[in-house]
């Protein structure tokens, strides 16, 4: 249901993505792993056109866009099928927690106020923050802000949620609460693409792991295969460095 074909992206003279192909089925939980600078985040941001790829086709459901010719209204239509959780949360600072979640429901989906509030409160309960509905983001911890960020993404009931290193900006003791929330929603069957450095988490929740390096997908397989019998040298080195307890030999 999500299909990326031959995605190229360069910043100036630097080729960040060199022809990425990726297919994601409904309900898949894909983790994208790889060293810094491998293009993971750029790929994720190309999916919802926060970064405009130079070449390629992006398909979500029945909407297929050639990145070169995509019009503004097509891009907005595609974005309505996706939601994103950001590394630095990016909550709307001037809106309360509740308003952060209802904003998209009211403005983009044009839902009535009462219904939007109900959805928001239900999701806040899901992420364990119903008591913070009227707080402003500046009054919350990083972990709480990110849980609101997740609730905001869930509220729109998107086809796919894109997670851009959702725990990288958090203090170590706050990582757990956010991962717990993502685990919980992973079980609800929603499609997710996660860029992360949390190896154990990726191994546990993903249905598939995509390993990227130098702007290409090096390999792609179920977690037990990637973590136990990786094919590429680069994958082996990377995983071994981050998770020394792995048993394979390099």
């Amino acid at each position, binding site marked *: 249901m999500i299909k990326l074909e031959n995605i190229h992206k360069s910043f100036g003279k630097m080729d960040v993505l060199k022809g990425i192909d990726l297919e994601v089925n409904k309900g898949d939980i894909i983790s994208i792993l790889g060293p810094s600078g491998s293009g993971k985040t750029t790929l994720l941001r190309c999916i919802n056109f926060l970064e405009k790829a130079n070449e390629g086709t992006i398909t979500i459901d029945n909407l297929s866009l050639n990145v070169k010719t995509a019009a503004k209204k097509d891009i907005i239509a595609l974005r309505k099928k996706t*939601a994103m959780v950001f590394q630095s949360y990016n909550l709307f600072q001037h809106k309360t927690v509740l308003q952060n979640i209802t*904003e998209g429901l009211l403005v983009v989906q044009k839902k009535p106020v009462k219904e939007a509030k109900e959805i928001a409160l239900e999701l806040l309960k899901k992420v364990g923050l119903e008591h913070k509905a009227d707080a402003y983001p500046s009054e919350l911890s990083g972990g709480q802000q990110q849980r609101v960020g997740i609730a905001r993404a869930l509220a729109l009931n998107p086809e796919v949620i894109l997670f851009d290193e959702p725990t990288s900006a958090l203090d170590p003791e706050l990582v757990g609460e956010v991962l717990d929330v993502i685990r919980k929603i992973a079980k609800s069957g929603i499609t997710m693409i996660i860029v992360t450095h949390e190896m154990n988490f990726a191994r546990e929740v993903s249905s598939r792991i995509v390993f990227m390096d130098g702007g290409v997908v090096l390999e792609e397989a179920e977690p037990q295969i990637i973590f136990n019998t990786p094919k590429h040298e680069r994958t082996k080195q990377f995983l071994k460095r981050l998770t020394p307890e792995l048993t394979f030999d390099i």
Partner: protein
Amino acid sequence: MSSFFDIGYVFEAIPKLLSYLHITIEILVLSIFFGLILGIIIAVPRLYKIPILKQIATLYISFIRGTPILIQLFLIFYGLPFIVGMVGIDITRMDAFIFVVITYTLSNAAAFAEIFRAAIQSVDYGQAEAAQSIGMTSWQTFSRIVFPQALRVAFPNIASTSISSLKDTSLAFSIGVMDMMGRGDTLITATMNALEVYVALAIIYYVIVLLLEYGYKFIERYLNRYLVKEAI
């Protein structure tokens, strides 16, 4: 010329001067209102780096900032009829009040343009991306997410510019507008009580500024409502 300072005349002058307060307020309100609109328009080319228009806006702002308001007032008063006259429109008989409003609008617009530009750039771009990522249009993103937060940053500067502008309106009488200052001038000519009239004017301007500052503080408190309390 009276040799003593006549405190009684200060209180006598205040109501006479106040009867022209509405002119001062009209100049201020009109020039701030139009200045805000023009200021946003001038800020756009610099925010979006539109070639040529950007340079024109930069030059405009630098010229206004670099010249005294009194000279701008005379430039508009004598220069504008000349320029407009070249295309065959005669505005030499136009009310001086309008020249004053035009000058202060142009001057405020330059200040507001810089304030808006800095304020809009100060809003974290990540929030705009978050808005776009949920399918909001550029306009929705600007008007609902970026602008309200930019306004908070801009407001204290807009407030202080408007207070300077209020004080600058006292120059309007130099091209013949009968505002409080102009009325003061005629009182001085008639009574020779110069110091008393200036003291009265000082009191009036000072009280208006205090009232404005008091009002602005309330607005600021509202705009800052979402900041952590200790941080304010």
